[in-house]
């Protein structure tokens, strides 16, 4: 029995036993290589779950849907290691209760889907080591190094060109598990911090703020990068901020659910070489 059938059965039994009220997984998509999120509330619906190497989305974003978990019932969700990382971050930020999330974990290695053992986030004790050992895509690292080596004028020109493509669709925000604010700063209009029109200044401000709000919180799932319709290299900027946080504070987001969020904590010994 393949992992797809195994998890289908497991989802069906979780639903029929009443242990969970909902299972979030993947169904067939509009084309052969796409998968669509599928929400099953009955064992019959669970028959449609698909699990293969095209299931790359981070479904943890659906868990922070307003009102979903307020009834105290459990929800099961298909998650890759980056999804587990998001769950840890959300728990650390008090957005989830660990006991409300049942995990159907899987990893995609060389195009093959492998099951992960553990059903509760506390079972994945080696996640922190895995995160620290994971190397980011070499293309992203090289590009970040290339930009770091530029003069600030060149960097400004590079990002100005990238951000000028932005159409302010906020797909990056909608798809991100960490963007759960009920009222996003960009929607605040008194005072209006960020110009909402899609001109370059507004785009610049929006993208700076988005990147800053994800610094030390990004699970590096790449969902924003895939969602961006104009291909702004969001993964690049997120990677660079994650690296900064790791270098400065030895902090990797989502290692475990007991972590204190990096910008909501401090150490008296933090470096301050730049402060006069």
């Amino acid at each position, binding site marked *: 029995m393949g992992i797809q059938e195994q998890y289908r059965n497991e989802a069906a039994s979780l639903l029929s036993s009443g242990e969970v009220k909902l299972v979030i997984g993947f169904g067939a998509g509009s084309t052969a290589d796409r998968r669509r999120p599928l929400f099953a509330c009955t064992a019959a619906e669970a028959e449609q779950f698909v699990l293969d190497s095209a299931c790359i989305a981070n479904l943890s974003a659906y868990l922070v849907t307003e009102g979903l978990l307020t009834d105290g019932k459990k929800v099961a969700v298909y998650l890759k290691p980056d999804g587990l990382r998001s769950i840890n971050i959300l728990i650390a930020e008090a957005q989830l209760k660990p006991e409300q999330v049942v995990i159907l974990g899987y990893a995609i290695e060389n195009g093959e889907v492998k099951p992960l053992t553990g059903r509760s986030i506390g079972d994945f004790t080696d996640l922190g080591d895995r995160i620290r050992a994971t190397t980011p895509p070499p293309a992203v690292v090289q590009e970040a190094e290339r930009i770091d080596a530029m003069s600030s004028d060149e*960097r400004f020109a590079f*990002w*100005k060109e990238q951000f000028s493509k932005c159409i302010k669709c906020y797909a990056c925000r909608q798809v991100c598990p960490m963007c759960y604010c009920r009222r996003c700063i960009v929607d605040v209009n008194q005072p209006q911090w960020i110009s909402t029109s899609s001109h370059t200044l507004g785009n610049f401000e929006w993208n700076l703020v988005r990147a800053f709000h994800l*610094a030390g919180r990004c699970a590096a799932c790449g969902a924003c990068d895939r969602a961006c319709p104009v291909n702004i290299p969001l993964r690049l900027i997120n990677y660079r901020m994650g690296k900064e946080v790791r270098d400065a504070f030895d902090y990797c987001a989502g290692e475990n659910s007991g972590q204190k969020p990096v910008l909501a904590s401090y150490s008296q010994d*933090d470096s301050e070489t*730049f402060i006069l």
Partner: protein
Amino acid sequence: MSEPFEPKIVAFVCTYCTYAGADLAGTSRLKYAPNVRIVRLPCTGRISPMFILKALQKGADAVLVSGCHPGDCHFSAGNYHARRRWTVFRALLSFTGIPDERIRFSWISAAEGAKFAELINEITEDTRKLGPFEQYQELQKVIETQSSY
């Protein structure tokens, strides 16, 4: 002949240390560059990165953020939190091409009126050399010309 460039500098300061330091500079009759606009806030922990972006949006050529020395915060830990935030925000600004010289950070206590005066003079001179922050102000101009339709 066009007027010489006078940099616009916005200083976000905490009320307990740097503002008191600036006050001391004044009461000590120290002379310093009049290019700085001081915005007083309760604590450096209250200084949101949005303030810095807003200052740039409104045409500042340089921004100074200043508060109590570590350990001296009136609220015990506001400046420690702020320090982490700035470390990250500064890296972000630098990565996106906003020069480090335009965004400055300092600790100035209520006793350091002279340090405040010197720092303002230094930033003003440095910014004068850098010239106006045209790259960023250009972005604002685009909006103003577009807003006619």
